[in-house]
Structures are given as structure tokens and as C-alpha cells.
């Protein structure tokens, strides 16, 4: 290798590697990096494995966190597919003739997302649900005049702050619509108060931040004709009516649950779908079906004139690298489970959550859930003595409770959001109930 280098340098008429850097002026030159010397592969593996062993995993302790990310079981076949180096070590498919594999897979992902939501078209992913919401607000404004984008006040804080950052530059004002204190659903009366000429779009989540199914999508659709953005949990889509059937214009969601690990919060996968009439206003990468020179079916990236490398500052968004491999996992997950399997997962999550809420409600001092009515796989839990005490007590017993609502909604200081998936065993649920019973 070293003689190789010397020979390459000689070919170019150079003497040393340093000659290759003679164009960097001395004033900004440095000689090497003040970082420790490199380690062997064995040392690196040991060091990082050891460092990360300070983490407690959801396998180490039954954990009831969700709030956007869910620890669903991922079949080994899904990982086997995404572990194909031909997928994970490939680049963005700019050259379709040598990228048909990833292109067709992503086109199938788009198609399956459309099946799930009833929408006509989907892009191949946003970074996560919160950036998808930001892009949806910007798209709503491209569809409809008006500066105000309405969102539920009961919204996870990070979705709200990301939305603020994504909309600020285009002059969109985000306003919040109250939730109904009795049902936990969007407050229709408050929504009507907010509707005006200047509204460019409305965002509703189903299930919402309380895990509650939003049962008034038809009424919401009737109340206004501004672009309606519906946030979904893709697993719940197997048991709830499709947003398209309620007249949604844009559907977004966190796609992580479809075949991807929780990954300490990343990488995730933002679902983004819309109706056909809005397709040219949709941000992000899109795969289309076409023909090759011999008339055979072929796939390629399409509608690229909307995006950054062509439209530059007038692009629909700046997204370039997205979450393609997560979309591959989602396509594989949906294909492996099929419609029947997806429905089984959804039903099991919903049933387990319902049974767990009932068991917690039966414990003196606990309230669950705050709102009556249908929930998907999450529900609120309150302890009269303040939830923080419960959180500490559960940790001491080797369990992890739900997400505390305090950072998001001040009035729910004492509440936590508990999530259940098909991965929770009866033993996990029993342990939780027993631990809660022992709290005094």
C-alpha cells in the first residue's frame, strides 16, 4: 500500500502526501487531530458494548412508555431483508437502471401506506412524525390561502416546537384548539371559534395525545373546508376507519411502529400521504412507475422538479436524505404480517391496554383513564399522591411507568401516559399491577 502511494504520487510528479495539501495556506494548517490513537476492532466493540451496557433496555425492565414510539415485535424476516447490504449500503437511487431493487421496494411502501390510509399517494418518508407535521402545515398553505394553522393544544411538546421551527420562515401562525375536558377529544365549539378566512389548515390526531380515538372526524370535516391533516398511528389503522374516508387531505404519522426498533428515538420514519389532486404540492422523495427503452416496467424517482436540486430556494422542502431504509423495513413488515397479521397486532394491543387500564382503575388511589371512551393502546394514569412518587417506586421495583404529562400539559401534572404493545406479556402486566398495589 505504501509503495502504491509513493508510485501514485510519482506518477503525478509529487514527492510526498504533504504536497497534496500545499493549497491550504499555513495560517489555517494544522498537523493532525488531538484525538486518541485508533483502537483495534476488538477494542472498539468492547468499549462501546461496555459503555452502552449502562442502558437499561425494555427487555431488562417492563416499560410502559409510548407517546409516539412503540416497542412492537419485529419479525426476524424484516431484519433479514433490511440487513441485505444491497439495500443498506446503497445511495439515493439517482441512477434507476442500477437501483430497481430499492426503487420498487419504496414504490411498494408508498402503495401500502396508501392502502393503510386510503390516500392516493405517499412519499418515501420524512424524518419523523414531527417534521412530517411541519411539512404538512407548509403544504396546507400551498393548497389554501391563509396564515393560521390550527393544531390541538393536547399535542406532544416536541411536535409543537418542531412545527414552530418549520413554519416560522413561511409566516404561518400556529394556533391551538382546546380539548374537551370530558371526552379528551378535540373541542368542537372551540374549533368553530378559531375558524376564519385566514386559516390555511387544521391538524387532528387519531388516536390523540391521550391515546383516545378521535370519534368526531366526520363532524370536524363538516365544520370546515380547509385542508385537513390527520395524524395516525399506522398500527391503529388496521382497526379504525381510514382518514381518506373522512375527507382528509394529508395524512402524517410516526412510521417507526411498522417494523422498526425504538432506537433511543432515532432513526424514525415520518409517514406522509395525500390525495391525488395535491400530489404536485407534496414535499419529499417520490417513486413512480414508468417504462424502460424496451417498454418493460421500470421504476424511478419522479416529480423531482419540486425539490431542492432543481428548484433550489423555491423547493417544496429541503429534504434530501430521508429515512429510506426505515421505509424498506416498513414495507417488509406490512408484507410479512399482511392485512390479517396487522389487524391481529392492533387488536391485541387495544385489548391488553383496555384490560390493564381496568386493572389499574381497580387499585385504590389510582384513576385510569382520565377520559372515558375508546382508546387504542395508550391511556392516562393518575395517582392521588402525585405521579412522580409512582414513577420512583416503579423504578425501584425494576419497572418503568408511562410518560409524565407535565412537560406537555401543565394541568395534567399528576398524569402519565401508559402504552402497551403485543410485546408486553401477562407476566409484565401482572408485575405492574402488583407494584402499583404495593405503593402507599
Amino acid at each position, binding site marked *: 500500500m505504501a509503495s502504491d502511494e509513493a508510485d501514485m504520487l510519482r506518477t503525478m510528479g509529487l514527492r510526498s502526501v504533504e504536497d497534496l495539501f500545499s493549497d491550504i495556506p499555513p495560517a489555517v494548517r494544522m498537523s493532525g487531530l488531538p484525538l486518541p490513537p485508533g483502537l483495534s476492532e476488538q477494542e472498539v466493540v468492547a468499549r462501546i458494548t461496555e459503555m452502552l451496557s449502562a442502558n437499561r433496555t425494555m427487555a431488562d425492565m417492563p416499560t410502559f412508555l409510548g*407517546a409516539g*414510539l412503540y416497542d412492537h415485535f419485529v419479525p426476524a424476516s424484516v431484519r433479514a431483508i433490511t440487513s441485505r447490504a444491497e439495500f443498506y449500503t446503497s445511495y439515493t437511487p439517482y*441512477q434507476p437502471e442500477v437501483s430497481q431493487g430499492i426503487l420498487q421496494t419504496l414504490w411498494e411502501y408508498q402503495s401500502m401506506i396508501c392502502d393503510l390510509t386510503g390516500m392516493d399517494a405517499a412519499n418515501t418518508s420524512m424524518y419523523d412524525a414531527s417534521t412530517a407535521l411541519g411539512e404538512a402545515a407548509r403544504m396546507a398553505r400551498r393548497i389554501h390561502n391563509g396564515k393560521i394553522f390550527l393544531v390541538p393544544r393536547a399535542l406532544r411538546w416536541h411536535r409543537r416546537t418542531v412545527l414552530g421551527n418549520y413554519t416560522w420562515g*413561511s409566516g404561518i401562525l400556529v394556533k391551538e384548539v382546546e380539548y374537551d375536558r370530558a371526552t379528551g377529544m378535540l373541542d368542537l365549539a372551540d374549533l368553530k371559534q378559531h375558524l376564519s378566512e385566514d386559516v390555511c389548515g387544521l391538524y387532528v390526531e387519531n388516536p390523540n395525545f391521550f391515546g383516545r380515538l378521535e370519534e368526531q372526524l366526520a363532524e370536524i370535516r363538516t365544520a370546515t373546508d380547509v385542508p385537513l391533516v390527520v395524524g395516525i398511528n399506522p398500527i391503529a389503522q388496521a382497526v379504525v376507519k381510514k382518514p381518506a374516508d373522512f375527507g382528509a387531505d394529508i395524512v402524517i404519522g410516526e412510521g417507526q411502529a411498522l417494523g422498526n426498533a425504538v432506537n433511543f428515538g432515532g432513526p*424514525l420514519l415520518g409517514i406522509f400521504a395525500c390525495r391525488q389532486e395535491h400530489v404536485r404540492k407534496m414535499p419529499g422523495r417520490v417513486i413512480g412507475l414508468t417504462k424502460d427503452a424496451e417498454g418493460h416496467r421500470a421504476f424511478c424517482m419522479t416529480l423531482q422538479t419540486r425539490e431542492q436540486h*432543481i428548484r433550489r430556494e423555491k423547493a417544496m422542502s429541503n429534504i434530501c436524505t*430521508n429515512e429510506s431504509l*426505515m421505509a424498506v423495513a416498513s414495507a417488509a413488515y406490512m408484507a410479512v404480517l399482511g392485512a390479517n397479521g396487522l389487524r391481529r397486532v392492533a387488536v391485541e394491543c387495544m385489548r391488553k391496554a383496555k384490560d390493564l387500564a381496568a386493572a389499574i382503575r381497580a387499585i385504590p388511589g389510582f384513576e385510569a383513564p382520565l377520559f372515558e371512551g375508546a382508546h387504542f393502546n395508550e391511556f392516562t394514569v393518575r395517582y392521588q399522591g402525585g405521579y412522580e412518587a409512582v414513577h420512583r417506586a416503579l423504578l425501584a421495583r425494576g419497572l*418503568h411507568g408511562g410518560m409524565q404529562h407535565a412537560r406537555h400539559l401543565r394541568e395534567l401534572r399528576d398524569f402519565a401516559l401508559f402504552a402497551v404493545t403485543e410485546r408486553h406479556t401477562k407476566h409484565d402486566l401482572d408485575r405492574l399491577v402488583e407494584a402499583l398495589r404495593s405503593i402507599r
Partner: protein
Amino acid sequence: MPNLPEHEVVRHYTRLSQMNFSIDTGFYPLGSCTMKFNPKYAEELASLPTVARVHPDQDESTIQGALRLMHELQQSLATIAGMDAVTLQPAAGAQGEFTGLLLAQAYNHDKGEHRQQIIVPDTAHGTNFASAGMAGFDIVEIASVDGRVDLSALKRAVGDKTLAFMITNPNTLGIFEDHIIDVADIVHQVGGLLYYDGANLNAIMGKTSPGLMNFDIVHFNLHKTFTTPHGGGGPGAGPVGVKAPLEPFLPVPVVTFDSSMYHLDYHRPKSIGMVRAWYGNFALLVRAYAYILRQGGDGLTRASERAVLNANYVKHRVQGALEVPFSGLRKHEFVASGAKLAAKGVKTTDVAKRLMDFGYHPPTVYFPHLVEEALMIEPTETETRATLDAFADTLIQITKEDPALLHSAPHNTAVSRVDEVQAARDPVLSWRYLKAQPKF
């Protein structure tokens, strides 16, 4: 949604993967995209349960390993780039740009100023324009002279409205902007900030740094310089580094260490908030940190040396067969022009498609726009001389081939030349479109 036997699904996607070019199957000289070897030890570490099955909302006491890794990675990246503080939150390079601009804006507003202008050279990546547009800024493009920023054009463009100048160094022609200190002075004198697009950072590690060159903000592309695989278009990771005056504005939460425990600090009154949910694409951060530990300071410097050697060597080999505008050294990439071939009726597209017949992924084509019929070649440090020679020989041979052969290329890929115009004219984006209009 289909209900299929699992092995049918596995076969389907395995077959598709075989129709996909990737780093593990071939040479990918894709300029400014930096496709190099994706080490397997990093894959193994990123799939540990202590990564995959950890929820980001877990109590701090249960995620000390993850927080420590983030803290150490932040420090390593700051050292490499010569910056004072780093956020790992952005999900991709373009999101890093967007974050960097929001930081510049927040810093500016905090000083009581309202600057609206972003200056970008004509050699810039398309995402620079799109990110600035998305953040709501006015964009001024300036021309370059001899493949470098024209100082007099820059002086004319800057003023009291200038928020930032966005540039990569080496630029997208692979040329080092050796008057960078003058560039920085011109921008700083009017109170503007200098932004470093980190896509080309792999050319200069250990030789110089954005900090030494007086940059104020830099984004990193972990999926380029730090080898994390690209996943067919994502996920990426685009951490942002800043000089001390911008630190108070970094996204929350910031990972801090109090000499016994790591914490997630949300109490940052000047913070811009979040740009995506949670803390970044953590599984990619693990891969990048593993790579940095494996290389060490010396290894990273060697990587830059070899990347620069390889680029200059390939340039030297193909010069003559293709024109290479602008004289002098290149850093990690160079741009050749197919203008002479165009006179024979051979477009750069034809050359690119023909390369596929020999098992190579084509270079980046038609970028940057200021070079006619551009082919942008980046071999990276991981390729051997034998690979580079074989590639150069092939490229030279193609320039001598019968134009008819090139026009009909590629000849031995899964599909022949794909009709991308048809795909955009009449989009077929999901199987719902097909059902409505079965023409394929």
C-alpha cells in the same frame, strides 16, 4: 394489502435487493455524496439491544450509556471541526443546514438585529438554497472566478442585511478556497456569520478545520465522512457545531455531565427548541462514534490524505480523455467536463449509463451547474489503486467508443434506459393509480 406466506415475501425482497447497486457490491465514485466502505463492526454495535430497545423517554438513570456516548461523540466532533459545542439532533445534512440557519437567526435576533439575507456561491449544494428558502430568508447567489469565490463579488453582496454566507471548503469543484481567511473577514466585518457545509469535511481532517478557517457554524454528514451507511437514501445524521457565542441557542435537550451523571438539559431559555423529535438518529451516532474510535486522530487524518491522493490520481489519469476545467490540486473530488464528447453527440448521461455496463456506479452528473456536461468524481479513501486504475481505464475507453453504443446504454442491467420524463408527465405513484388506469 397482501396476505402472503413469509418465504414468498423474503424471496421477493431478496430478489429485489439483487437488482440494486451498493457499496458492498461495487465502486461508487459519487462526488459530494461520499460513498465509502461501511464497516461491519459498526452495524453490529448499532443493532445491540442496548441501542434498539431503549426508549428515549426513559428516566435519565436508565440511559446513562446512551447519554455518555452522545457526550463523547459531541466532543470528538467539536475537536475535528474546531468548534466549541455540537448538537446531534438534526436527522440529515439538509436538516443540519436548516438548524444552523435557525441558530444564526436566533443569535441575530438576540442581538436585536433582523438580518434576512443569505449569500451562497454558485458552486453550492442545492440544499443550501432550499434550507435558506425554507427558513424564510432572501438568497443572493454570487458567481465564482477560477472555480473559487470572487472576493469582489462577495464584497459587493455583503452588508448590514447579511445574516450568513454558506460555503463548503473544499468547494464542490474539489478546489480549496485558499483565500478563506479573506472570505471570513469580509463576512465578519459586516457582522455576518460564516456557515460551513460539512459535506466535504472528509478532505481536510487533521489538515485544517472549519474552526481554524474562522467559520462560526458547521454541519457534519455522519453518513458521508463518518461512514454510516446511506440506506438507499437515508437515514442520515447531520450534527451541527458552533462557536461559543451561538451555544445558548442550540436545540434542547443538551446533554450535560456533572462529573457523576449525564443529564438532558431542557432549561435553556435562548434555545431554538427542537428540529425533530428526541435526540437525533442515535443508531447512526453509535456507528459514527465506533468509526471515530477505530480510526483515532491519526486514522482520520490518514483517511483525508488517502481520499485526496485518490482523487488527484484519478483526475491525473482521466485528464485528456475528458477535460478538467481549472488547474491545480483537488481535494477529495474533481469535476470533469464531457463538453468535447457533446460535440460528437455523446451526452454525459450516455457516459454515465455506459459505465454501468462495466459494473460501476456513475459519478454525480450535471452538477455543479457551472461546468458544462459535468461528471463529478469522488473515489474516497477506501478504494485501492487497482480499482482506481480499472475505473480510469474504463472511463477512457468509453470516450473512444461508438456513440451509438453509448446512446443505447446500459445493456446489461435489470432494465434498459428508464424513461424518467414519462414518469413525471403521467405519475403512477401507487397501485391505486394502477387500478384506476392499468397501463403498465
